[in-house]
């Protein structure tokens, strides 16, 4: 009984306590003795002599430990007894191998044979994994899962599987190895076990995906916790009064209407203003700052046209010695290139509006009116 239990536990790769309990339940359900059940589970009445009574690999109790669970070599059959290759045993072997009922195997074999123009016997032999004239490994009767060989063998196997790239080739060859293992030395059994252990590893591309995808999801969550900013992914702002979707600067959405503030922001970056006046308008080195009232003291409200002219001409083209309301000397704080050729009039107006609103603190509507980009003009262009 103890021996049977140990063998059954070995064969099923489960702890003896669990096997005992299931066997008892099963025996009760079937009305047979516990020994009968255990004998059936352990591999057909006889405890396979070649199976060393090894330490239980115990994958169940410590399932989280990869080392313990990485070796489930069920597919590896111990060297089975050999019998003459009669048709019935070939069918049985093929059925066993394919996990199909014999009647179905027979039928499929006949169909395959017809399709390929060979004899059904050849097909069956191929499926059963035996050469013509060779003896047939008889499947252990009533042993659904072939008795497992103990884990220690796999653990002591050479590190060959580690160098196998993705497990694909290893797996592909596994069948042959298992088949030949039936007839050849136990060394092959070891090798096929090593292959099985390699099969337990994740393919590298998948392991990479398992790292990359959660990393992407995490990064997405960290950097876009509240979705994209206005302007990204076709999103718009909502006017607090009317509830309508509007441009990000609050102007009415329309095809003809250019969002001058956004255009100004892009131009400020793109045309190079940012290099001397800084990303937040604070100025760089001796170049003047727009913030802290710097811009609006030089070009106060109502004198945006002078700012537009200055951006277009700048130090090289300015006709007088000073500029702006504070009479700043031209070239006094560095040389600025004129943008008349590089930018369109609209872009110059947009960048002026952007500078006045973002850095000067001027009200957007006032800046739009001041620099000639009235929001009403845009709506009119829609023809509404």
């Amino acid at each position, binding site marked *: 009984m103890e021996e049977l239990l140990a063998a059954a536990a070995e064969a*099923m*790769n*489960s*702890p003896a306590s*669990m096997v005992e*309990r*299931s066997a008892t*339940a099963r025996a009760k*359900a079937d*009305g047979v003795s516990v020994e009968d059940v255990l004998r059936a*589970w352990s591999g057909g009445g006889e405890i396979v002599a070649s199976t060393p009574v090894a330490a239980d690999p115990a*994958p*169940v109790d410590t*399932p989280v430990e*990869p080392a313990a669970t990485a070796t*489930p*070599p*069920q597919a590896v059959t111990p060297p089975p007894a050999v019998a003459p290759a009669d048709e019935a045993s070939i069918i*049985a072997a093929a059925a066993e191998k*394919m*996990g*199909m*009922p*014999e009647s*179905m195997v027979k*039928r*499929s074999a006949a*169909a395959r044979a017809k399709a390929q123009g060979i004899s059904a016997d050849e097909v069956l032999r191929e499926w059963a994994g035996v050469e013509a004239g060779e003896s047939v490994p008889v499947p252990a*009767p009533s042993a*659904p*899962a072939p008795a497992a060989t103990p884990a220690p063998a796999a653990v002591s196997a050479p590190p060959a599987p580690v160098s196998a790239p993705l497990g694909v080739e290893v*797996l*592909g060859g596994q*069948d042959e190895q298992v088949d030949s293992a039936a007839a050849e030395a136990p060394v092959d059994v070891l090798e096929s076990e090593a292959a099985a252990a390699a*099969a*337990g590893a*994740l393919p590298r591309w998948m392991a990479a995906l*398992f790292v990359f*995808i*959660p990393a*992407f*999801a995490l990064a*997405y*969550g960290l950097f*876009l*916790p*509240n*979705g*994209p900013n206005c302007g990204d*992914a*076709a*999103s718009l702002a*909502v006017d607090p009064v*009317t*509830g*309508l*979707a509007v441009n990000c600067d609050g102007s009415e*959405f329309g*095809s*003809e209407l250019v969002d001058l503030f956004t255009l100004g922001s892009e131009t400020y970056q793109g045309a190079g203003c940012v290099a001397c006046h800084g990303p937040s308008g604070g100025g760089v080195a001796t170049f003047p700052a727009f913030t802290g009232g710097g811009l609006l003291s030089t070009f106060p409200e109502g004198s945006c046209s002078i700012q537009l002219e200055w951006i277009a001409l700048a130090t090289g083209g300015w006709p007088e010695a000073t500029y702006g309301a504070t009479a700043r000397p031209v070239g006094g704080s560095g040389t600025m290139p004129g943008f008349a050729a590089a930018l369109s009039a609209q872009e110059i107006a947009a960048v002026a509006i952007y500078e006045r609103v973002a850095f000067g603190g001027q009200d957007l509507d006032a800046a739009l009116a001041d620099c000639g980009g009235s929001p009403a003009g845009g709506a009119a262009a829609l023809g509404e």
Partner: protein
Amino acid sequence: MTSSEDTQPEPMDDTVAPAKPARAVKLHAALAILFFIIGLEFLIIAYGGIAWPDLLAGNSYSEYFNYGRSLPMALNLLVFGWLTFGLLAATYFFVPRLTGTNLALPVVAMINVVVMAGGVIAGVAAIGAGYGVGGRLLEMPWYSDLALAVSFLVSALIVTLTVRRSGLDHVGVPVWYFIAAPWWLFLSFTAGVIPGLGGAPAELQSAFTATAVFGLWIASAAVGGGYALIASRIPEAEFHPRLGRIGFWSLGLLWAWTAGRTLQYSPMGDWMETVPVLFSAALVVAVLAVAADFSLAVRGKLDSVAQSMPLRLYAAGTAFFVLIPAHMVVQSLRSSSAVIRFTGWESAFDLLAVLGAFSLWTMALLAHILGSVSGREWGRRWGASISVAMVGGTLFAVGTLWVTGLQQGYTWLAGVKSGAYANSGDGFFNTAAPLQGTYVLTAIGVAIFAVGVLLFAVGAIRRFGGSGDGDGADLLVGYTWPDQERVAVVRRGAAFVFGLAMLAVFVFPAVDADREPTLLADMTRDYEAGSAEAQGRDLYIAEGCWYCHTQQVRAIVTDVGLGPVSASGDYAHDPAGTLGVARLGPDLAHAGSRSPTDDSDWVVAHLVDPRAERDWSTMPAYYHLTDTELTSLAAYIAGLE
């Protein structure tokens, strides 16, 4: 020993072969296949109805076939009829075989399935008769909900008792799924039908239910069945020692959190729209783990897969399964959502999941079960023709919806950007006209799929007679699962997973959603009980107007011109079902603020004969409504200022 010994003298039969559940399993399977065929018919009628809106007009009871009724009838039949019955059959079949015991309470299971079938039939008939209520997959009225909730609870108890009776305390991967999934079904469904929430939170409630029923019940049960199926058919198949575990827990944890993917730019909180992107992307891992575990297990045994009809069908289903998270990611990213939301992509997901992955899987399991209990295997040619019809049909239907959706979305976007297009009225023609043709193709795709199903049904009928338990099903008893877990851990974990899912997609958003009624809600949507507008709103929901008309304006380019952007408080006085899911017709959030929909007489005329003024309209004719009903519905729509 069972009677199968006489008919199936197989050597492995000296282990147990529980025969008692066979009757319950067969009854579930038979009802499932019946619901499948009826559900598909309604699905074809629904899509055909868009292409030929007047095809069935004038016949008695033709209102049953209006898109707004036939689509929810089809989806409820497919999800709660076909898939749920089929997967319960698989659960009752496999759990005893995996645990080596008999099914607990087989008689209760028989009574239970009758109650469940009654619930589905009554509910679907109610939807068809115009008594449906709002919320996706929650359209069935309360009496059906009650019958279903009770029978789902009983099913979960039967499975739990069966596992307990086996005395096992460690079980393999498929049993984890079978233990958890029926409970997840009961809990998700119950959480979905609990009344009391209105407006935006109720909309989230139904989004959660639909997502959870798909992921936590159908996908989970079918994946569990897949493990058992492969182990039955290919006993030498080796599953990975860890992938099964990764797949089980991540599938449960991640799927339900993707529920917000159809709510991008909606009036919910912004964080609700980031979460689904995160989890849809992460779900790729779960789905790949499952798919990889399956394919690694059968690698090198592909011949066995090709030979076996159930395995072939299951493999096809798994291929569609892999596409699901990809579709989810595309739906949930805001940049793509801005284009495809409210288009055919919404129905494409339903078809991809329900027809592609889930139906193929469930058919594979039933094919195995019926082959097994009858002792008559399916021929290879059956498998080939059925899977070709079903895979081809699904690809065709889903593919046309994908293309249609992109076309429609980009037409909206480009139209608004160019300023040459209005989102409503005749301007909608630009996007509606090309749809009619493509929905013909969608209907054809579903019809091709249905041919496969009919073939399957014919084969299935021939396999109900036998009394065998053979075909190697009992191999499962001795199959050694490489990874085992304690039953108690699985139970506690499953409860934890569900709690987390509830928190994510139901509790948080319901708390987060601003339920304070807005001025708009108080001024224009707070109807007195019994008023014409209140009746009109009930009709709007029962007739399924919300399958084609949204009532939500997003702060994106596509929606410019539809009026004020919607806030969640706008729906404070509404039951679930007014936000809508797709735009086969124009948005109606502010229909009462623009001509001609502000004129209720015009709306009545348009409801009765949609193609009188607009020959491109795909709307069904609502001549079956009484004059009072028409007036109420029109008063409601014209009052949406």
